[in-house]
């Protein structure tokens, strides 16, 4: 059964890992392959793995492309391209090979390590170094790229176009040399390895990382002020946003710490400018007090938390979905707010925009739980459509004499005046307050404002976007965020075996859409909650909320290794037998 899976996987997608020591250009080569695949009509994904070194050290690029959307890595790799064998032991875990796999390497780099030979993969040798050294500025990664393209069935022209685009900033000589190296590698050994993939349709595509995609969503949502402190793996979002915000009439302020970032965006939002910060676990921990202030003063802000291994400093460069607990429960007091998780790199655009606009409309805080595997991976995706999203902040431009900033209204949303508006003056406060905003410790005011802050979230109609639901059948997988990709992959493979399952991928985690979720689960016999953390944070949350039938099981696997579809399929099928 498992073998059938693997055969089907290889027919539907192609997976290649490129490894090398620091400076060998593994990641650049990966990006070129990915974008060449896009030019050949495929969609794709590239994840990176790097050691903890700041510069240098080993790195690996994993690329998978397919005529279908690619949202996770496969169970194994069809091809391993080793630019050298230094530090390969650090990656061996992350690059499962089979006897159908091929290893492409340079005999001059030494013998293929035993642990890689053991799985029976075929070895093809190409003298990368000899070819490269015969060229001015010759680079072995470009020779390897050519040989790799021949093996995967990518057209040389597509590779050349990607090389020109990606290396153009390095100058004409580098590009010229790279093109010659590419050609040498491509023409060296023209034995076909396997039938090429079915060609894809030519979509209009983007090549984008999840961090950039969250940035696009933020800008689409109207964010024009960002304050943030650098942190792995969120910094690229900030680096992408900074120069662009500046040209769109906004700004990015690099703060002295995360305590400052969150309070700065609160200040800017109080001034009327939709504002956001991006961070990762340690930064989110520091921001939590500020989030409470935004929530109680009803000053909308959005925090994109690009999760990494935790707790504490944890594993900064690797992915984990372990911040759901803090996102849901981190605040003191009764503090209902919005928590979202993008379901793919493509979805980072929609979910971030939705989060920003709902924070604005509901005058509350949105926490968006992206993660390293989305944020730092590069994907070829269909261009995300611009949704029709009407939600905006209710601004009171002409307050009358009765204006009260925290007035209890029918929808519990109190119109907000902005500084500069005559007659609308108020003091926003983290202290509990009455409808005027005057600090109050009276029970009646506390209850009234608690109800208001809860009701505005509970009574809002979130429509169908709270989750992506697909498939049918007795077995149902509930998942969230980046794990959705591998769950969808498991379903695809089960369908190749003529079996379907239901998937509920939750995008809006709080407030939990309990009735809708219960309806979606309705009648399922097997229920599996799949997520990438150690303690089953979503599983426990759903249990506590009383929406999980008794028989529900948890599949919680901590980072840094990615979940693989094979594990999900084995779990679903083993218990049936």
């Amino acid at each position: 059964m498992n073998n059938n899976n693997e055969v089907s996987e290889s027919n539907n997608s192609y997976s290649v890992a490129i490894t090398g020591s620091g400076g060998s250009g593994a990641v650049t080569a990966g990006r070129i392959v990915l974008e060449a695949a896009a030019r050949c009509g495929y969609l794709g994904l590239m994840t990176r793995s790097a050691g903890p070194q700041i510069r240098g050290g080993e790195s690996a690029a994993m690329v998978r492309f397919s005529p279908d959307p690619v949202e996770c890595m496969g169970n194994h790799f069809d091809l391993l391209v080793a630019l050298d064998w230094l530090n390969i032991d650090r990656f061996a875990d992350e690059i499962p090979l089979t006897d159908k796999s091929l290893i492409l390497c340079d005999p001059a780099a030494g013998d293929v390590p035993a642990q890689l030979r053991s799985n029976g993969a075929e070895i093809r040798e190409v003298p990368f170094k000899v070819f490269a050294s015969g060229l001015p500025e010759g680079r072995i990664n470009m020779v390897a790229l050519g040989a790799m393209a021949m093996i995967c069935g990518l057209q040389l022209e597509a590779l050349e176009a990607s090389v020109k685009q990606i290396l153009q900033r390095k100058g004409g000589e580098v590009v010229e040399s790279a093109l010659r190296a590419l050609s040498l590698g491509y023409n060296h050994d023209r034995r076909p390895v396997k039938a090429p993939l079915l060609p894809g349709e030519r979509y209009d595509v983007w090549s984008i990382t999840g961090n950039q995609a969250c940035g696009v969503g933020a800008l689409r949502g109207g964010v024009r002020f960002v304050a943030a402190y650098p942190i792995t793996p969120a910094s690229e979002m900030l680096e992408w946003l900074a120069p662009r915000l500046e040209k769109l009439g906004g700004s990015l302020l690099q703060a002295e710490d995360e305590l400052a970032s969150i309070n700065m965006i609160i200040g800017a939002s109080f001034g009327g400018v939709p504002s956001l910060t991006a961070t990762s676990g340690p930064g989110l921990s520091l921001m939590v007090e500020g989030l409470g202030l935004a929530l109680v003063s009803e000053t909308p802000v959005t925090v994109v938390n690009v999760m990494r291994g935790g707790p504490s400093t944890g594993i900064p460069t690797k992915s984990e979905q372990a911040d759901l607990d803090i996102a849901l429960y981190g605040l003191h007091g009764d503090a209902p707010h919005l928590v979202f998780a993008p379901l793919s790199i493509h979805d980072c655009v929609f979910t971030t925009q939705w989060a920003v606009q709902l924070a604005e409309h509901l005058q509350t805080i949105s926490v968006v739980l992206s993660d390293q595997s989305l944020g730092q991976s590069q994907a070829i995706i269909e261009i995300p459509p611009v949704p029709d999203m009407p939600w905006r902040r209710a601004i009171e431009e002409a307050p009358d004499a009765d204006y009260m900033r925290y007035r209890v209204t029918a929808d519990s949303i109190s119109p907000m005046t902005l500084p500069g508006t005559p007659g609308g003056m108020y003091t926003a406060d983290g202290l509990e307050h009455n409808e005027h905003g005057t600090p109050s410790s009276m029970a009646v005011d506390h209850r009234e404002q608690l109800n208001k802050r809860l009701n505005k979230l509970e009574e809002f109609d979130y429509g169908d976007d709270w989750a992506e639901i697909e498939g049918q059948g007795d077995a149902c997988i509930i998942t969230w965020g980046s794990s959705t990709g591998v769950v969808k992959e498991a379903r695809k493979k089960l369908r190749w075996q003529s079996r379907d399952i239901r998937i509920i991928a939750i995008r809006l985690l709080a407030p939990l859409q309990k009735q809708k979720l219960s309806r979606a689960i309705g009648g399922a016999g097997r229920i599996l909650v799949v997520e990438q953390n150690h303690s089953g944070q979503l599983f426990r949350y759903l249990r506590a909320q009383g929406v999980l039938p008794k028989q529900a099981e948890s599949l919680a696997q901590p980072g840094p290794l990615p979940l693989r579809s094979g594990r999900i399929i084995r779990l679903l099928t083993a218990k049936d037998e």
Partner: protein
Amino acid sequence: MPVPALKAKDYKSGIKPVWCPGCGHFAVLAALTKAMAHLGFEKERVAVVSGIGCSSRLPAYIDSYGFHGIHGRALAAASGLKAARPDLTVVVAGGDGDGFSIGGNHFLHACRRNMDMTYIVMDNEVYGMTKGQASPTTRPTWTQSKMTPHGTGIPRFNPAAIALAAGAGFIARGYSGEPAEMTRLLVEAIEYPGFAFVQVLSGCVTFRPDQRGWKEVVHPFINDVPTEDRIKAAQIIQADEGKATGIIYASPFPVWQPENKQVTELNLFEEEFCI
């Protein structure tokens, strides 16, 4: 249509302060509203931002836009507000614990960022709201707090010296017992184009009754102040025991302020991703 000039009392919100009778902060509130009247501000174009503590209650007592945030983060909130809304006059108010202890890092970086705002610290050398603990400006031998029964035993934080070292371009010290001089300092501070730091000796009658003695020791700077010379300013600050008042240092520095001018459309950036 000409608007009749506002008087100081017009800038008061009418909310009764939580402060104890005799608290120095009343005088700061009065001086600030006088400064606002003197400068002829439209109330709605002023935002007063604060953190937590007795003095941080000030925004609610002023009839303008206000933001009463969390402990220590007033300068951060104010910086975000000013970055997004350069059209507003931003005044930040707080105490010595809020500004120099929990908010110390923001103080350093607000000084060097030099955004156009005025930071008033009402320094009474004690945490009043939590009932009398030592603050960073409390003398090390003050033993009246149960939390530090032997005194803090550590040297005091010197706000003016640190502001200077951190790059502040305007540094002044006032005294709540000298309201007219304080109003003058605040007017100058608000008019200074950049980050203006005003330390106000504002006594706590409840937990530091000894500060009644300040009126005997507070005196104007005898040196030739203000100066534009950093070295001289450092000497003035270090030579003084912390009770001299006046503008110590005023020197123009480049102000950090985003332009917030849109020159292109978002779809141009989205096209960068197309293959």
